[in-house]
């Protein structure tokens, strides 16, 4: 019996033990399944994060490169426009290059290179006109083929240790052949900063690398920034993955620091560059997995009776740990997006008051913006920054709960610059179709707007100069025929005046014909000056001395009740045609006299153009310029008159007094001297002409 009892007891214990073992094994298995599921989930999340990071940073780089491409495209378009003589338009072009450069912060310089590789113009200081870049890839690529598109070359080390990326586009000649390139240089520091910002510079788990197809490491962020590795060998798995057009994410050893990372790829649009983004995933995954294993072991040591409870607990804990991990990944993803994008995000409640504005620190004005916005409506925070009409249109959209796009505000940034931002928004509704507010994005479009404006200004200037140029060509042809036609008129009239009896009617009339023919000859000479067909030689002259002589001539035609003041700030050497400078001064002084009814004053001044004039007159920040200024206290003119004063035959003087050729000739002369002319005037407020001529080289060196 006792044996039987004992046997029973032993069997029961065995069953309990077996049961316990079975339950434990089941628990272990379940726990491990959980761990495996979590790992798989996390791997998927990490893969997604890598993929998204690569796209976010890559598109930002694309966008940065595209804006440089657009700038170069505008230049190419300008330079290759039919009838555009690059050298003739150089002042306007240099000005335009500088204005673009200002908008694309971080550009080292923009320039033009001719078909032989000689740098013709560059806005970067210290880039000499003598530099030749015929050995550079960005030149040879374009030279070799006409469809190279935007060529990006670099990094190129400069003499002062800076590294540059050079962007280049082809300049086609009129017949389509190679005529040189337009290029823009950006320091790699600047691109690296872009990369670092996008990758989240403070996140040690992210490493971003920009690789050229030949393996060159163009840029690198992340932990192993300064390893000195210049290129990734062709046999490295990373290179093979790129060659196979892998999109990732793949687990790869980073060629720079040999750390295994989950690696994503982004192929830059139309360029031989690939962005490689690697993320360490060890940290988070191991932590969660460790917690789950510890829980599983605890359960194993527990009582079988609470196995079900424990099992449920583990499930629940595992689920929440998994959820927390996923949430963290998702948060990281959105942080990546916010940091990588140059846009920001906002939300408003049903009262249209801001409840959220994404923090995109480091930007010029957005930090202030976020603080200012919470609790306010957009109009309360921004009322002065859009016109009343724009606000009315915008608020009509809001009242109708419509989505809106490209609502523009012009608000001052921290540094006082005016920024243009474009706001997009969509209404949010709950499940019951109740209005919950708005949500949307904001974009700083200042650069875009400024480039558009610079382009428009340049277009107006080019149109004006092309219009005058074609008029000049026409005038030149007519002048030629008139010169011929005047030969017999003048010669025959003079001959018959000599042959006729003295004081006879015939002699008197022939003398009148001679006078009329001479007058016509003078008009034709003015037309020729305007059409720039009549070219004297340009030689170094002292502008101040030359203008001084001209004023002493012009003074003869100034009535006594008009004061003529002169001011010369030292000698300024310019390359000029002395007789044409005299013509400018005599013409302008004559015009000033005409503009003054009764008494008044005329001021002639020659000086070095200062920053104030350059800014006020939109001049390029190029070489030094001499300023010849002729101002009068006369009647002034309105905008419509000002727009036409340089057209041939446009005159405000009575018929018979003015030919309408004086200022047209001045315009031609100034253009021939590669100078620029600006007019400041208003009705009743007098007129000031400012003529800017580039200083000759020797003066520049002496300065």
């Amino acid at each position, binding site marked *: 019996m006792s044996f039987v009892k004992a046997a029973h007891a032993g069997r029961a214990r065995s069953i309990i033990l077996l049961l316990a073992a079975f339950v434990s094994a089941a628990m272990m298995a379940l726990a491990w399944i959980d761990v495996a599921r979590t790992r798989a989930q996390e791997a998927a999340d990490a893969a997604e994060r890598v993929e998204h990071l690569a796209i976010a940073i890559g598109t930002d780089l694309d966008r940065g490169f595209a804006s440089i491409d657009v700038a170069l495209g505008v230049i190419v378009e300008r330079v290759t426009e039919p009838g555009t003589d690059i050298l003739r338009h150089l002042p306007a072009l240099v000005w335009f290059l500088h204005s673009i450069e200002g908008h694309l912060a971080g550009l080292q310089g923009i320039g033009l290179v001719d078909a032989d590789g000689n740098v013709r113009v560059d806005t970067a200081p210290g880039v000499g006109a003598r530099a030749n870049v015929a050995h550079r890839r960005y030149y040879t690529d374009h030279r070799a083929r006409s469809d190279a598109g935007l060529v990006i070359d670099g990094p190129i080390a400069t003499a002062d240790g800076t590294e540059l990326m050079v962007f280049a586009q082809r300049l086609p000649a009129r017949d389509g052949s190679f005529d040189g390139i337009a290029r823009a240089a950006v320091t790699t520091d600047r691109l690296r900063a872009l990369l670092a910002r996008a990758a989240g510079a403070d996140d040690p788990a992210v490493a971003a690398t920009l690789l050229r197809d030949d393996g060159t490491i163009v840029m690198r962020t992340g932990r192993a920034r300064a390893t000195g590795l210049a290129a990734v060998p062709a046999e490295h798995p990373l290179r093979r993955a790129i060659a196979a057009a892998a999109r990732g994410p793949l687990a790869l050893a980073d060629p720079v620091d040999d750390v295994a990372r989950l690696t994503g790829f982004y192929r830059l649009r139309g360029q031989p560059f690939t962005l490689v983004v690697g993320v360490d995933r060890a940290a988070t995954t191991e932590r969660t997995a460790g917690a789950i294993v510890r829980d599983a072991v605890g359960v194993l040591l527990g009582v079988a009776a609470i196995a079900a409870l424990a099992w449920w607990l583990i499930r629940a804990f595992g689920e929440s740990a998994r959820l927390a991990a996923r949430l963290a990944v998702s948060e990281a993803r959105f942080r990546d997006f916010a940091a990588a994008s140059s846009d920001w995000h906002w939300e408003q409640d049903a009262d249209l008051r801001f409840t959220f504005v994404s923090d995109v620190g480091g930007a010029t004005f957005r930090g202030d913006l976020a603080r200012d916005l919470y609790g306010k409506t957009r109009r309360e925070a921004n009322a002065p920054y859009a016109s009343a009409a724009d606000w009315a249109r915008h608020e009509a959209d809001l009242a109708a709960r419509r989505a809106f796009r490209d609502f523009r505000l012009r608000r001052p940034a921290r540094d006082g610059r005016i920024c243009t931002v474009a706001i997009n928004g969509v209404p949010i509704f709950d499940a019951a179709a109740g209005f919950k507010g708005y949500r949307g994005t904001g974009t700083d479009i200042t650069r875009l707007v400024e480039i558009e404006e610079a382009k428009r200004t340049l277009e107006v200037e080019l149109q004006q100069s092309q219009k005058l140029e074609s008029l000049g060509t026409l005038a030149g042809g007519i002048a030629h025929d008139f010169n011929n036609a005047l030969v017999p008129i003048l010669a025959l009239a003079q001959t018959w005046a000599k042959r006729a009896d003295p004081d006879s009617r015939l002699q008197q009339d022939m003398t009148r014909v001679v006078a009329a023919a001479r007058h016509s000859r003078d008009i034709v000479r003015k037309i020729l000056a305007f059409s720039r*067909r009549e070219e004297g030689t340009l030689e170094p002259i002292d502008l101040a001395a030359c203008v001084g002589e001209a004023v002493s001539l012009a003074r003869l035609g100034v009535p006594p009740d008009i004061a003529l003041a002169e001011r010369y700030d030292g000698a300024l050497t310019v390359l000029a045609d002395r007789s044409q400078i005299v013509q400018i001064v005599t013409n302008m002084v004559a015009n000033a006299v005409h503009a003054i009814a009764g008494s008044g004053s005329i001021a002639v001044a020659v000086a070095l153009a200062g920053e104030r004039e350059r800014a006020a007159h939109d001049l390029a920040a190029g070489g030094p310029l001499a300023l010849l200024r002729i101002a009068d206290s006369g009647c002034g003119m309105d905008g419509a008159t000002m727009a036409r004063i340089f057209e041939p035959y446009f005159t405000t003087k009575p018929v018979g007094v003015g030919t309408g050729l004086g200022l047209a000739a001045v315009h031609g002369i100034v253009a021939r001297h590669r100078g620029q002319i600006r007019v400041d005037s208003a009705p009743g407020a007098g007129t000031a002409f400012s003529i800017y001529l580039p200083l000759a080289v020797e003066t520049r060196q002496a300065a």
Partner: protein
Amino acid sequence: MLRVLIIDQDPMVRYALRLVLEDQGHAVLEAASGAAALATLGRATADAVITDMILPDMKGAATIRAIRAQAPGLPILTMSSGQHAFAPDAARDFAAVGDLLAKPFETDELIDALARTVHRQPASMPALGAPALGAPALGAPAFGALA
């Protein structure tokens, strides 16, 4: 008395110059083109040539070269209506040539220029250099600047 060949495609110009020169006692030959001028020089002698820089059949510089080849040492006075570019080789051709007259010119300018050219006096351009108030000279293409 000189025998002067006038080369210009415009008959009105040739007629006017003929009148001026005949009043000075010169004899005048006329040609409307470079080819006609060379033909004339082939059958008649001339003491001087006055030619426009733009002719219907050949450029002024080519005409001058051809005349030089046919009649070395013949004085040549050139006229221009102010619209052509001088190439360096054209300037070389001109090195032995007299004044360049900018059309239209005073009869006295023509007479003086012809006299200077025939007598190989150094070219000067009083009418082209000094600007005067009211009618400033605009730096017409001046042979003197190229020599």
